[in-house]
C-alpha cells in the first residue's frame, strides 16, 4: 500500500507531524511525505526516523490557501500513486481534506483516533456526538483520506533519516489574500499540549491567574480556560476549550474552579486523565474526573505547584 502524509512545518516539526508519519507507518506499506513550510532539508530528513521513505517539499506553496494545498497534495498523490492520504486533523486539514475528497472521489474519515481496521474492508474509529460516542467509519472508494486527531498516538522512532527532494506542486495562484497573522510567541499550541492547566470563574478575576500560570510552568503545561472566562475577557479566546471553543485531548487536564457544564466537557472528555479542583463537592465535573480535590483553588493550586516542584527536584 502507498501512503502519503501531508504536513506543514514552521522551522521545526510539530509533534502532530511526527504522529501522522508514525500513524502512516503503522498502516504498513511505503510512506511518502509531502510538505509545505519553512523547515530545512536536514530537519525534514528526520521524518525518516518515524517511518517516511522520502519527503517531497514545495516551499512555494502557502498553507494559507486551501486550493493551493489541495492541488499540491493531489499532484503528490498521483506522483506516488497513493492509496491512502493522511493529515493531522488541524485547521489546515479541515479546509484541505474535504476538498481533496471531492477532487479524488476518495472517502474521507475525519478525526480518526485509531489505526484503520483492514481485516474486513477499510474502516477507522472516530469520535461522534461531541465525544459522547464513537463510530466505526468504512471507506468504500479505492482511494482513502484520513485526518488523525492530535494526541491519538505517540510518535515512535523506527528508522534512519530519509531522502528529501524538491517537488513542484503546480499550485497556481492563491485566492486567499493574507492581510495579517497573529501568533502568540513561545506558547505551546493548546491542541498539541500533553498537559493542560485550565481555570474558570472560580478564579474570581484575571488578576488571580498567576497561580494558574505557576502550576502550568512547574508542569510544563499549556493554560486553558472555560467559556465564561473568555467571554468576559479575562483570558484570550484561543484559550477557550469546550463545545464552541477548542476540543483537546491531553494526557492530563487539570480544571480549577470550573463547574463542568456539558458544553465544557464536550471539549475535554477525550483527555486521558482529568483532575478537578473545586470548592463545591457537588460540581458536575467531579463525575467526569479521575482525581478530585474539594477545596479553595487559592489554597490548593499553590500547594499543588509546590508538590510538583518538590517532585521534579527529587527526580
Amino acid at each position: 500500500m502507498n501512503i502519503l502524509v501531508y504536513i506543514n512545518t514552521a522551522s521545526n516539526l510539530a509533534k502532530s507531524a511526527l504522529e501522522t508519519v508514525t500513524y502512516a507507518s503503522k498502516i504498513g506499506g511505503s510512506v511518502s511525505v509531502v510538505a509545505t513550510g519553512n523547515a530545512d532539508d536536514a530537519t525534514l530528513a528526520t521524518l525518516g526516523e518515524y517511518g517516511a521513505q522520502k519527503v517531497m517539499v514545495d516551499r512555494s506553496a502557502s498553507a494559507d490557501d486551501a486550493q493551493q494545498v489541495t492541488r499540491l497534495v493531489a499532484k503528490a498523490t498521483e506522483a506516488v500513486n497513493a492509496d491512502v492520504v493522511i493529515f493531522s486533523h488541524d485547521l489546515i486539514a479541515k479546509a484541505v481534506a474535504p476538498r481533496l475528497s471531492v477532487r479524488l472521489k476518495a472517502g474521507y474519515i475525519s478525526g480518526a483516533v485509531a489505526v484503520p481496521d483492514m481485516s474486513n474492508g477499510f474502516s477507522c474509529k472516530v469520535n461522534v456526538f461531541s465525544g459522547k460516542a464513537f463510530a466505526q467509519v468504512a471507506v468504500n472508494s479505492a482511494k482513502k483520506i484520513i485526518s488523525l486527531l492530535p494526541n491519538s498516538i505517540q510518535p515512535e522512532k523506527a528508522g534512519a533519516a530519509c531522502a528529501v527532494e524538491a517537488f513542484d506542486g503546480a499550485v497556481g495562484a492563491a485566492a486567499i489574500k493574507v492581510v495579517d497573522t497573529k501568533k502568540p510567541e513561545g506558547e505551546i499550541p493548546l491542541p498539541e499540549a500533553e498537559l493542560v492547566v485550565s481555570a474558570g470563574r472560580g478564579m474570581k478575576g484575571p488578576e488571580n491567574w498567576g497561580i494558574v500560570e505557576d502550576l502550568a510552568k512547574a508542569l510544563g503545561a499549556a493554560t486553558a480556560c472555560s467559556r465564561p472566562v473568555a467571554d468576559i475577557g479575562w483570558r484570550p479566546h484561543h484559550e477557550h476549550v469546550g463545545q464552541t471553543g477548542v476540543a483537546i485531548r491531553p494526557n492530563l487536564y487539570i480544571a480549577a474552579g470550573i463547574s463542568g457544564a456539558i458544553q465544557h466537557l464536550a471539549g475535554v472528555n477525550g483527555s486521558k486523565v482529568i483532575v478537578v479542583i473545586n470548592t463545591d463537592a457537588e460540581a458536575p465535573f467531579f463525575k467526569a474526573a479521575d482525581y478530585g480535590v474539594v477545596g479553595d483553588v487559592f489554597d490548593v493550586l499553590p500547594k499543588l505547584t509546590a508538590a510538583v516542584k518538590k517532585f521534579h527536584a527529587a527526580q
Partner: protein
Amino acid sequence: MKILVCISKSPDTTSKIAFTDGNKQFDENGVQYIVNPYDEWYALVRGLELKETLGGNLTIITVGNAADEAIIRKALAIGADDAVRVDADAKDAYFTAMQVAEYAKANAFDLILTGKETINYNGSQVGGMIAEALDLPFVSLATKLDITGTTARMEREIVGGVQIVEANLPLVVSCAKGMAEQRIPNMRGIMAARTKPLQVVPATAVEDLTTYVEYGLPAAKSAVKMIDPNNMDELVELLHNEAKVI
C-alpha cells in the same frame, strides 16, 4: 447579494445518546432535533445581518426528509427568505455536500455559509466539499466576516493563532463562534415562516464513499478518587505512578 446557508439537524445538546439495531443506528427515541447550533447561531444569523445591511436574499438548504421541516420552519422564523429541502437522508458529508453543490450550481450564489461542524458528526467536511465541487475559495472556521463590494474580509483561526484574510466573492465560508449572536424568533417571524416558500427537490445520485458501520459508547469512567486538599504530594504521586501522566 444572494446568500445560501446550509443547515443540518442535530439532537438537542442535552439528548441521551444511545444506539439501536445492533449499534448500527442512532436511537431517535425521545430525541428532540434542533438546528445544528453552529449553522443557526453563526452561519444563519451572520448571513441575515449581511442581507439586512447589503440587501438581497437569503435561502436556507437542508438535506433531509419531511420530518425535518420543523427545523426548516425554525430557520425561516429567524429570518431566512425561503428554503430548499433535498428530499433524502443525509447519508454522509460527501452525499450532503454534493446535493447542496448541485442546487448551488443552478442558482449562482454570492456567498455560501455553513457552521464549522455539526455537533453530532463533528466532521467539519461539508463546506470544503461544496467549495471544491463548485471550484470556489473556502475559508474554514471564520470568526468574523464582512463584505465590501465583491470582497469578503474574514478573521479565522489558524494553527496556534488568528489570521485576517480576504477573498473575492463568490465564496464558501464555515462559521465559528464570534461571528454573530443567537437570535430568538419572535411571534411575527414564526407566523411569517408558515407561508414562506419551501421547495422540495429530489436528490441526485452520488457515489457511496463512506459508511457508518457501527456506533458505540465510551467505557464508563471509574469512580473519581478524592484527594485531601492538604495532601497534594499524594496527588502528584498518583499522577506519576498510577496515572503515569507526569
